[in-house]
């Protein structure tokens, strides 16, 4: 037993599992309180109070919501493809959770699950897998509105993924590494948002589109498509879609903090507490996501495609060219 415990492979797997367990549970808590925050902020933006009945300031509202979701009827529509109908909500959560494997929360090894040399590519790969949940959920429901939502999302997410991938290349050129830890280390003096403001802007806009948040929530556009891809989903399956959306928002915000806002870097705090900076920046970005949602109206579909293909994509290509030329000039002056 002791020999097995001292095996480095076993140790590696054990500690990775412990960290995954911690991240999973913290994530669940953060997501439920982010939903509370969203409702509260939305309330105040619309001159209401927001949820305030369950517990002090409505703080127990998320618990009540989850309990309600659990006790709802689980409904599978007639003519639905049963297996895919059940798998789709799981697919919504998994890619978002996998992304957390490469996010460095702090400078210490204990504060990250792993550091791989293609960390950024893993994030892009997972965000490209995220489209399956919505597309399949919409298709397998055997419902016109759901199918329309699914088709919309597959076109939308593929279009915006390109601009998102290209907007990170400016950062890659400056950091010279695909490892997220190296990218954060490269930002010790200046955050990359200073040198790459255009890329940051493009990344945030595409992040909104990739997570299907307003003003890009066309796959669920309640005014035209009832509820879009999750029209037929009820109970905890709907809850999983909800969880997936917010987990995606959090993971993409983590990546944005890592790439553009200097990760854990920040003044005043000693190295052992620098992870606090990471969470402050993360909180600011999450607030930004909620703020956008309750400020902008939804785009029309042709406006969405025009913005993606005719504005964001050329702009991100121009940004890459500009960055590359500047870097070349700096090195070969």
């Amino acid at each position, binding site marked *: 037993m002791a020999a097995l415990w001292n095996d480095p*492979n076993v140790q590696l797997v054990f500690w990775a599992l412990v960290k995954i367990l911690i991240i999973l549970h913290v994530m669940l808590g953060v997501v439920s309180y982010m939903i509370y925050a969203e409702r509260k902020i939305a309330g105040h933006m619309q001159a209401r109070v927001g949820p305030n009945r369950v517990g002090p300031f409505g703080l127990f509202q998320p618990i009540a919501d989850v309990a309600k979701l659990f006790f709802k009827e689980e409904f599978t529509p007639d003519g639905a*493809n049963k*297996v*895919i109908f059940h798998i789709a909500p799981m697919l919504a959560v998994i890619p978002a959770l996998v992304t957390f494997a490469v996010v460095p929360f702090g400078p210490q090894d204990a504060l990250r699950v792993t550091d*791989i*040399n*293609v960390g950024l*590519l*893993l994030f*892009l*790969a997972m965000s*490209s*897998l995220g*489209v*399956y949940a919505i*597309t*399949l959920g919409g*298709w397998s429901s055997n419902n016109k509105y759901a*199918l329309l939502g*699914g*088709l919309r999302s*597959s*076109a939308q*997410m*593929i279009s915006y*993924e390109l601009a998102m*991938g290209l907007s990170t290349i400016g950062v890659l050129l400056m950091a010279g*590494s*695909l490892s997220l830890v190296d990218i954060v280390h490269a930002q010790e003096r200046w955050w990359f948002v200073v040198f790459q403001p255009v890329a940051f802007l493009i990344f945030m806009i595409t992040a909104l589109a990739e997570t299907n948040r307003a003003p890009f929530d066309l796959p669920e556009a309640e005014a035209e498509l009832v509820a879009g891809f999750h029209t037929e989903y009820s109970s905890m399956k709907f809850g999983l879609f909800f969880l997936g959306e917010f987990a995606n928002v959090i993971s993409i915000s983590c990546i944005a903090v890592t790439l553009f806002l200097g990760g854990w870097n920040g003044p005043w705090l000693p190295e052992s507490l620098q992870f606090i900076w990471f969470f402050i920046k993360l909180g600011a970005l999450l607030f930004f996501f909620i703020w956008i949602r309750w400020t902008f109206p939804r785009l029309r579909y042709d406006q969405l495609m025009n913005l993606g293909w005719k504005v964001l994509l050329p702009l991100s290509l121009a940004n890459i060219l500009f960055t590359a030329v500047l870097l070349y000039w700096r090195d070969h002056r």
Partner: protein
Amino acid sequence: MTPALFIGFAAMLVACSLMVILHRNPVTSALFLVLAFCSLAGVYLLLHAEFVAMVQIIVYAGAIMVLFLFVIMYLNLRRDLESGVHIAVRRGVGWLLGALLLAEAWVLFGHRWAQGPLASDPSLAGPVGNTQAIGQALYTRYLFPFEITSMLLLVAMVGAVVIAKGRGPHATRRGETPQPKEPA
């Protein structure tokens, strides 16, 4: 641990590939193909080709297969009908030819071809990874083929748009809405 992982990924790859060609529902086939590509990415990781593995997931699983799914949903294909004598005959011949090809590969391997272990060259599996080396080679030695592929993609893009737009009687030009007839 590596052989066990390899056997796991290989078994998943073969099983998923078989399901791709055996399942009657095109959407399920496409999903099994996605799974097959992901397990292939796992095999690439075992071969220390991290960059290729990630690009495999981004390009194949994230883009090409979404396109497939999009078309299957757009055409609203449900289950394939496969019955009738001539279809059965053709299927028999197909499996026979496939078995023949596999037997050929078996004989080749039996004759001590492709021996030896996978070399573990330290220059390929260093801690910085091979992304930089691939980039260097791609933009120096392989610059011309690289530019050719960009032309290929451009041509394919134009071709796809032209073909998909169609020239049938129902085709309308983009941005041109059919005008309502003026009352006479």
